[in-house]
């Protein structure tokens, strides 16, 4: 008997450990994923620069020089300083920085000036400890000359997509995401809130209302890629809206986000006690006034929390945007909701497809930016919920 009890207790302990193990394993997956991304991506926020002495006076450069001339001059200077192959040590877009330097201070055209220019991807990798022999040898040489440094990569935070991994930036995709989210919010929020109000406060119990409810509950469960197909068939092929524009992306994501907002909104509205409605009705407020003066303000924190969560989901969404053509190479940040744009998750997807090694750290760095953005949004939602949550 005692042995039997001991065996049962052992089984009990095993079961308990199994449960704990399941949780810890899940948490470990999350931690592993985050650590992988961070350790791969942190390098993306740093940039290797090489000092190049450019004798502007010796060249025939002027303030009006075309890009090609500057590029040639920079290449020549690098070759002169670091021998053959020196030009290849610089990023394809290094000359842009020279051009900017000339714009900032035209007087350097008459002088010899040392400029720090972004290194090519291979050199960048070697400087961060991940390169081939040739690049590493060059880095060692440059280090002896004090001609190489690694600093914070402002280009990454301010630039857009490029073919050279050393020159890519996230700002273009970030801005595209912002514009897309703006369109999504501008449509999904009012439509979602008004639908929630209608269904919760006014809708008569009839077949039409049932149809609306069934639609909303089903839309919340439809795979996101289906919304992409809808966007492709309706917005692009029927209405001929511009491809890969934040407008179409935002519209598509709005249709996807709206059910989330409706469901959250209905729950928030439902939690406003009926006595508040009675009170307002009792002194002669109309039904519309009751809703807009009392119910909605009280339900707003809940609605906002739901909206932010829906928006966070839309922000991380990739598949529907691929369907509407948002996978083009866009080298400039969009300047409006109708110009071609990329968004953060699509940019991640595009970079992840690149073969060049330099893109690994950039992809991970972009993921860090996306996760930080999402974390901020969810933090805001939790803050709102804790601050304004009301127990009746």
């Amino acid at each position, binding site marked *: 008997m005692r042995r039997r009890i001991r065996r049962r207790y052992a089984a009990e302990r095993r079961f308990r450990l199994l449960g704990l193990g399941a949780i810890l394993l899940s948490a470990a997956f999350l931690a592993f994923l985050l650590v992988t991304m961070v350790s791969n991506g942190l390098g993306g926020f740093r940039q290797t620069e090489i000092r190049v002495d450019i004798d502007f006076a010796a060249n025939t450069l002027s303030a009006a020089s075309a890009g090609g001339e500057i590029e040639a001059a920079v290449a020549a200077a690098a070759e002169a300083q670091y021998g053959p192959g020196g030009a290849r040590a610089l990023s394809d877009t290094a000359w842009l920085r020279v051009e900017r330097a000339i714009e900032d201070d035209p007087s350097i055209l008459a002088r010899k000036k040392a400029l720090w220019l972004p290194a090519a991807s291979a050199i960048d990798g070697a400087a961060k400890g991940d390169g081939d022999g040739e690049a590493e040898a060059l880095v060692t040489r440059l280090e002896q000359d004090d001609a190489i440094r690694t600093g914070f990569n402002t280009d990454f935070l301010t630039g857009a997509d490029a073919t050279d991994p050393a020159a890519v930036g996230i700002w273009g995709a970030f801005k595209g995401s912002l514009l897309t989210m703006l369109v999504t919010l501008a449509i999904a929020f009012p439509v979602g809130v008004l639908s929630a109000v209608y269904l919760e406060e006014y809708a008569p119990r009839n077949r039409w209302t049932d149809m609306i409810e069934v639609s909303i509950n089903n839309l919340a469960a439809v795979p996101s890629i289906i919304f992409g197909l809808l966007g492709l068939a309706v917005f692009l092929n029927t209405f001929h809206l511009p491809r890969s524009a934040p407008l179409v992306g935002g519209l598509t994501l709005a249709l996807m986000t709206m059910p989330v907002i409706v469901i959250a909104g209905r729950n928030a509205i439902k939690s406003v006690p009926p*006595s*508040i409605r*009675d009170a307002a*009705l*009792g002194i*002669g*407020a109309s039904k519309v006034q009751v809703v807009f003066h009392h119910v909605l303000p*009280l339900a707003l924190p809940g609605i906002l929390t739901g909206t932010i969560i829906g928006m966070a989901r839309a922000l991380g969404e990739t598949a529907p945007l691929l369907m509407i053509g948002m996978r083009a190479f866009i080298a400039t940040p969009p300047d409006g909701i109708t110009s071609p744009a990329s968004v953060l998750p699509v940019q991640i997807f595009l970079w992840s497809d690149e073969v060049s090694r330099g893109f690994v750290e950039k992809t991970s760095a972009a993921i860090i930016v996306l996760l930080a953005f999402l974390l901020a949004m969810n933090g805001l939602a939790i803050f709102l919920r804790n601050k304004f949550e009301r127990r009746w």
Partner: protein
Amino acid sequence: MNSMTDTVAATPLRNDAAAKMTAREVSVFYGAKKAVDSVSIDISQDNVTAFIGPSGCGKSTFLRTLNRMNDTIANARVEGQIVLDGEDIYAPAMDVVQLRARVGMVFQKPNPFPKSIYENVAYGPRIHGLADGRAQMDEIVERSLKRAGLWEEVKDRLQDSGTALSGGQQQRLCIARAIAVDPEVILMDEPCSALDPIATARIEELIHELRGRYAIVIVTHNMQQAARVSQRTAFFHLGSLVEYGETSEIFTNPRVERTKDYITGRYG
């Protein structure tokens, strides 16, 4: 079977000279269920009228028909006629919002808005456009709070939340809120049932003070309260109006057996 329980005895006081509201043959249905059965009653302008009866007898339901609060219940249906100063309140031309401004309501549980005390009172006048400018609104708020006997207690903290007050104070705030839109009739649906005895006494006192200025109808399941605050009493049972008369009459000399049984505590 007692011969006294006949409906003839329950005929309301008709042709009341000071009748503010009159109801004729009013029935209320929830779906197929009849909650109020053919009630006819006159509500007098100068008196406090109490509706008493066991729970579920339809007194609250009937009260809510007087300012059409039943409209908010999806499957509720009202038959018969209710007239306020000669106007049929269920006529299509009657605007329910204006009706409720004239016939205010105080609810069972105090339900202040989760806003400041000032805003609670000012909300009604604001939506009805009763005040031109801040000064006039201040005046209305002060007058209403004074009439509700709350001014002295809250005058220094008008910006505090209305929900931070005690239960009795909240209920007086709700009365002030109802008064602020300058109604003609005030309906009170068991206004003291959620309050302690001291707060209850304060409210009853207040009802005395308000009498005459407003026609007041109060639903209560507390017979002592009905006896204390009202001049007229109507006894409801199983959806019908059993007996209606002077409060003193009803409590000392009821004409219907059912009324007597209820008042003497045999059921309810």
